């Protein structure tokens, strides 16, 4: 498992890969490597996406941000807070290929344990693995644990538990700490995840000799430093008597003393205090584990969603063809709507060719049936809705496009296109659901970042099209419409989010005109720049002779401009143009002329 460098968006959020979705965000999170805090990585946002766990520091995010691919994560454990210690989630890496985790391979199957017991590498262990009856009798991984949902104590998986045959009726031992029987699913999940994470016994067997040599070396070195034969617990480090097979303190299984200590010792020897000397941890390998410390709550949801993401394994689905809709099997008719199965691999079954009106009607009917099916499936429960979100969004867009075409012929086609496209492009949608309840500030700051990204996205170029300036109300309307009526943002939230831009140092800024009109601008866009633009324009007008003869000396005074002309020239909205002109007037650059033609602005020749 590696800390990977992160690409950040303009709003300093991790840039998502295609198909990647944001699952959860939590602020005030610290990062640990093993047991040690990583300096400079102690206050930031943790982003859980369907593919990664990302950390982005609050201070200097461009420098201190890392991501871990979920596919390299073996499991995540939850650790509740205790007095001053914040709740933590520990992420364990998957064993690397060609560098198998010794402790696990030694116990994962009877074949291996026999191997290791025969091997001279474990002489210090008085009780070879094969001597433990339950281990030889069960093909299951013995050091798999399930975490009690009541007291969060890590219990060993019962030896007779077989995820393949077990049912809800299977007898489960109660939690060792609190005595409450666990829910069947908890144990089942633990068993499956443990089984899934182990390598095949064969490959590990092949690799064993070399490792055990190392193990032996380490073991012998260890013998000199620690009381002979004692076994330190891999979980709590309590040094147990060698004859114990389970830790006295925490109940974790003590695998053959030699190897377990060896592993611990080896990683320590390699990196005693892993990252203290380095300022950047990008691309460093994590050998032991990574902890996320949640100083401001949110750990439960994060853990839940992380587990969910690990089970769903969305990263495997990248570029996979979509699940063929069941309607295809039911009806011999072809799947007509492109949205339901756009890249359906199998061609349609023999097609009943109907022509004319009957054919059109049939097509319509099929489309409706299919839409119904998609909607019906999706809304069965929330999980299903999330799974088929893509389809539903596509469907919603099609419906919106159709209805838009039908009803408002007046609206420009371009606007409609932008609106319907933007929902798809609006990749990282911040919703309240993504954040733990009650963290209003986090919601606002995420929304603020979301907005900033939306604005600065070059694909849409919202700001460019509006001439670099846009009124907040227009933005609110466009933004909410681009969400297709889901998870709409309230005006007050929107304004508060926009007001956060300055604080979060985002590349857009909110500006209040004298009249109270709020506009959105790029942060590097200042009044001086606008004034310079206007002055350049005035200068230009002074050089170009006017279309019709004018009574004044145009080589000196130039020509007057109206707000409409200004709006046209700079592609601003008229309201914004009027405000900008008045701003320039306020600075004494322009002056006004009120006449029967309306309000016009001139270069200021009065004050000069």
């Amino acid at each position, binding site marked *: 498992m590696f800390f990977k460098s992160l690409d950040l968006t303009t709003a300093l959020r991790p840039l998502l890969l295609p198909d990647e979705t944001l699952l959860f965000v939590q602020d005030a999170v610290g990062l640990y490597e093993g047991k040690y805090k990583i300096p400079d990585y102690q206050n930031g946002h943790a982003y859980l996406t369907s593919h990664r766990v990302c950390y982005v520091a609050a201070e200097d995010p461009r420098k201190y941000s890392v991501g871990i691919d979920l596919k390299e994560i073996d499991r995540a454990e939850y650790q509740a807070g205790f007095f001053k210690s914040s709740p933590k989630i520990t992420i364990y890496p998957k064993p690397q290929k060609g560098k198998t985790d010794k402790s696990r391979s030694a116990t994962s199957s009877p074949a291996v344990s026999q191997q290791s017991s025969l091997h001279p590498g474990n002489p210090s262990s008085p009780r070879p693995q094969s001597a433990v009856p339950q281990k030889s009798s069960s093909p299951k991984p013995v050091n798999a644990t399930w975490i009690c949902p009541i007291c969060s104590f890590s219990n060993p998986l019962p030896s007779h538990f077989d995820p393949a045959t077990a049912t809800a009726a299977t007898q489960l031992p109660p939690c060792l700490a609190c005595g409450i029987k666990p829910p069947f699913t908890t144990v089942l999940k633990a068993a499956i995840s443990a089984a899934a994470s182990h390598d095949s016994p064969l490959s590990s067997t092949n690799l064993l000799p070399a490792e055990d040599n190392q193990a032996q070396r380490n073991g012998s070195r260890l013998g000199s430093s620690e009381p002979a034969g004692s076994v330190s617990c891999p979980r709590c480090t309590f040094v147990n008597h060698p004859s114990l097979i389970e830790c006295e303190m925490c109940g974790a299984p003590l695998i053959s003393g030699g190897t377990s200590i060896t592993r611990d010792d080896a990683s320590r020897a390699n990196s005693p205090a892993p990252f203290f000397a380095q300022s950047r941890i990008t691309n460093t390998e994590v050998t032991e584990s990574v902890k996320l410390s949640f100083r401001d709550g949110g750990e439960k949801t994060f853990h839940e969603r992380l587990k969910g993401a690990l089970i769903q394994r969305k990263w495997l689905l990248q570029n996979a063809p979509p699940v063929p809709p069941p309607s295809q099997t039911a009806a011999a008719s072809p799947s007509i709507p492109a949205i339901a199965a756009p890249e359906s691999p199998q061609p349609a079954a023999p097609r009943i060719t109907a022509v004319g009106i009957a054919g059109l009607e049939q097509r319509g009917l099929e489309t409706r049936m299919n839409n119904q099916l998609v909607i019906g499936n999706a809304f069965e429960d929330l999980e299903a809705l999330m799974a088929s979100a893509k389809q539903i969004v596509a469907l919603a867009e099609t419906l919106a496009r159709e209805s838009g075409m039908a009803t408002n012929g007046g609206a420009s086609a371009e606007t409609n296109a932008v609106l319907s496209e933007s929902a798809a492009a609006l990749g990282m949608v911040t919703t309240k659901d993504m954040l733990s309840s009650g963290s209003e500030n986090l919601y606002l700051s995420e929304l603020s970042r979301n907005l900033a990204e939306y604005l600065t996205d070059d694909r849409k170029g919202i700001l460019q099209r509006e001439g670099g300036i846009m009124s907040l109300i227009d933005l609110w309307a466009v933004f909410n419409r681009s969400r297709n009526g889901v998870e709409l943002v309230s005006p007050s939230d929107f304004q508060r989010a926009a007001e956060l831009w300055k604080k979060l140092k985002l590349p857009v800024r909110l500006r209040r005109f004298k009249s109270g009109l709020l506009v959105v601008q790029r942060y590097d866009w200042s009044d001086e720049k606008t004034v310079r633009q206007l002055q350049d324009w005035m200068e230009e007008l002074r050089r170009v002779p006017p279309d019709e003869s004018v009574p*004044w000396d145009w080589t000196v*005074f130039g020509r007057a401009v109206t707000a409409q002309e200004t709006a046209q020239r700079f592609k601003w909205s008229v309201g914004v143009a009027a405000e900008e002109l008045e701003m320039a*007037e306020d600075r*004494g650059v322009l*002056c*006004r*002329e009120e006449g029967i033609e309306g309000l016009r602005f001139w270069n200021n020749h*009065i*004050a000069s």
Partner: protein
Amino acid sequence: MATAASTAAPFPFPSTYNFPPFFTPQPNNTTRHSQLQKWSSLIQAWCRHHRTYRLSLVDAVDTPLFHNAVLRKRLDLGEARAIVDWMTKSEEQGGGGQRAEWIVGAAAGGNAAPNSVAWIWWRRPEEWADVLTDWIDATGQRGVVLTVFELVQGEATVSQEFHGMDVEVMMKTLNVLVKRGKAQVFGNDGGEGVKFF
């Protein structure tokens, strides 16, 4: 009393007079201030050119002073009043240095509206007093008794700037000199005489 006599040379208007925004009150304080200043000097120059001492705004809004026929722009009465009002204030009050003074109760042409006629002080009475003293000194007329009519209309003063001056302005000027102890005014209505010391 608006334009006393159309002299041969046309009045040279400043360039801003042809600038359309000049006729619109500017909201920006700095711009407004220089606009008022420009108007003030324009009015003073105009009055000096036409030897006008007393300016009736109601009549003046139709004169080229306030009406630019070429631009088809005019200063409306309210704005003209605002400018003259600014001129009446001293500079400490944020005004134009008391270059004008409202003539209270003056019913010019039967129009009894308040603030419609004003003295335009292209020279203030104090300044006129200086001019008068200089002339007296230069011609050695100290201790000589002159009538006001002689001063204003007399042949001896034809070359002087105050020749043809409004009698009321002359009286104000002489009053300044009396306060300074440089002159004594005697006689009564219509036949005042003045003795310079």
